């Protein structure tokens, strides 16, 4: 039984068709990687799934319920939470307070939220920075905080938008371990990622998006050998690759 079903979703901005008739399923307990060149429509798809954008057509069903008309906080409370590509910590709150914001919904007392937040900080390796201000964090810590806040909402599905971007290989390795640990707690993960090392290490299945359409899907080691995928990344000829790099 699929936890998340995306069925024929399209989204355009003026004349630009960012996402075209995209369909896929996400099974409970799975880690699905979503890859594709820049501008392929991955983040737009995330915006639609998380309720920040309404699809022009198609539907998103989560846990048997249509998400049409629901706002992001509704979707979060149902158990599906997203992170942002550019980490957005609350700059003037401490790390602990940042995480508490995620933990407050559905608890009776603030004390419980603090307990949840502390536990999440231990899990994500941020416990030592609990009292630091959001603005003082380095990029890797901001990425971790993004993950920690999302985990504080106690999600069933985690939508991760390029959490590895800008990290060194060592940091990437640590974050892969963290995501494995989170997955080990029974959280289903949908992962947009450019860092192939992370995609290959984590994903059980990979979906490739190009120009808003799904061009390939399957096991990671199969997908990377698919000629269509190679063409999408490298271009049929160099002119094509240049124009895409500009876009």
């Amino acid at each position, binding site marked *: 039984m699929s936890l998340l079903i995306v069925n024929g979703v399209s989204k355009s901005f003026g004349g630009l068709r960012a996402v075209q008739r995209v369909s896929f399923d996400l099974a409970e307990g799975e880690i699905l990687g979503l890859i594709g060149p820049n501008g392929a429509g991955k983040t737009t798809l995330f915006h639609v799934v998380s309720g920040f954008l309404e699809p022009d057509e198609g539907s998103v069903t989560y846990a048997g319920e249509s998400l049409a008309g629901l706002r992001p906080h509704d979707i*979060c409370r149902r158990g599906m939470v997203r992170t942002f590509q550019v980490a957005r910590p609350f700059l003037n709150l401490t790390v602990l307070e940042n995480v508490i*914001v*995620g933990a407050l919904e559905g608890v009776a007392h603030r004390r419980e939220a603090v307990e949840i937040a502390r536990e999440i900080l231990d899990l994500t390796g941020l416990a030592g920075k609990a009292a630091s201000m959001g603005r003082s964090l380095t990029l890797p810590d901001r990425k971790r905080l993004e993950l920690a806040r*999302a985990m504080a909402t106690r999600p069933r599905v985690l939508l991760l938008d390029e959490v590895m971007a800008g990290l060194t290989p060592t940091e990437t390795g640590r974050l892969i371990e963290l995501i494995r640990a989170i997955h080990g707690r029974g959280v289903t993960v949908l992962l947009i990622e450019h860092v192939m090392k992370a995609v290959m290490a984590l994903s059980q299945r990979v979906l490739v998006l190009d120009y808003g359409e799904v061009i390939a899907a399957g096991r990671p080691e199969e997908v990377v050998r698919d000629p269509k995928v190679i063409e999408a990344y490298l271009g049929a000829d160099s002119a094509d690759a240049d124009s895409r790099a500009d876009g």
Partner: protein
Amino acid sequence: MLRVGLGAAAGAALLVLPFWVPSNWQNLLISTFYYAYLGQAWNILGGYAGQLSLGHAAFFGIGAYTSAVLAIHLGISPWLGMLAGAALAAILSLGIGYLGFRFGLRGFYFVLLTLAAAEICRLVALHLPILGGYTGLFITFRPNPWQFQFRGKIPYYFIALAFLGGSCAIAWLIQRSKLGTYLVAIREDEDASEALGVDTFRYKMIAYAVSAALTALGGTFYAYFQFYLQPNSVLHINHSVDIMIRPIVGGSGTILGPVLGSFLLELLGESSRTYFAAGTAGLNVVIYGLLLIVVVLFLPRGVYPTLAHWMRRRPRDSA
């Protein structure tokens, strides 16, 4: 321990102060408390939730006119009328909030919406005969505590002080609650809050309604302190600026910010009047403006946060 002692001493001083100082000082203190109170009301929306309102004069005016009209025409005590005014102000704020927040107005656009709403209120008041129009509304002075009318300044002093204390208590409770945490998160990053399950629309509406209702209560106080209401003073944009400037100077989003801001500006305004008003006309206003620029330039987050930061740093430096 030191803070408790200081607080108790300050409290005791405030209780005996009005009996010791001359009448013009009483006025000054009442005005300080009263603007600190209005600043605190504004602070809940503008400071904590980060939604800048340049139209709080509208809620103030509604509070002032509602209680005055109910008392003049129906003989209803302003103590009750002020609650009606607060309810009306809250309803208006929910209307403006619905328009602004449902359609995603942020930043300058929300500011303009609040300003426009207040201007509409002013124009309506200017043309409503029951509110006295241009001439204004006079309240006949008949001393009676139940009618919110008192002889001398001292009762007003204590009412203003109680209002201020109440508003600070409300801000303190909000700051400690889920509501307060969410408001600050919304101020910091609305989309990120929404993604984390915060119903940003609902919490902004709550903040707006609380802020508007408290502001309206302050309007009733003004009506029965001045005994005269005129749309071009009560509902004017200048008045909206007067309400918001104190928490901004003192430090918005903090409990002590509006209080400190009010004391500072009252002191600034009064001293520039005392020392510069006698010579060239308007010089005192220029001096006031210049001093304001200096404060904002050097303490961009407000006086209180800078002061608190400095106080925290000092013991460590000397150790």
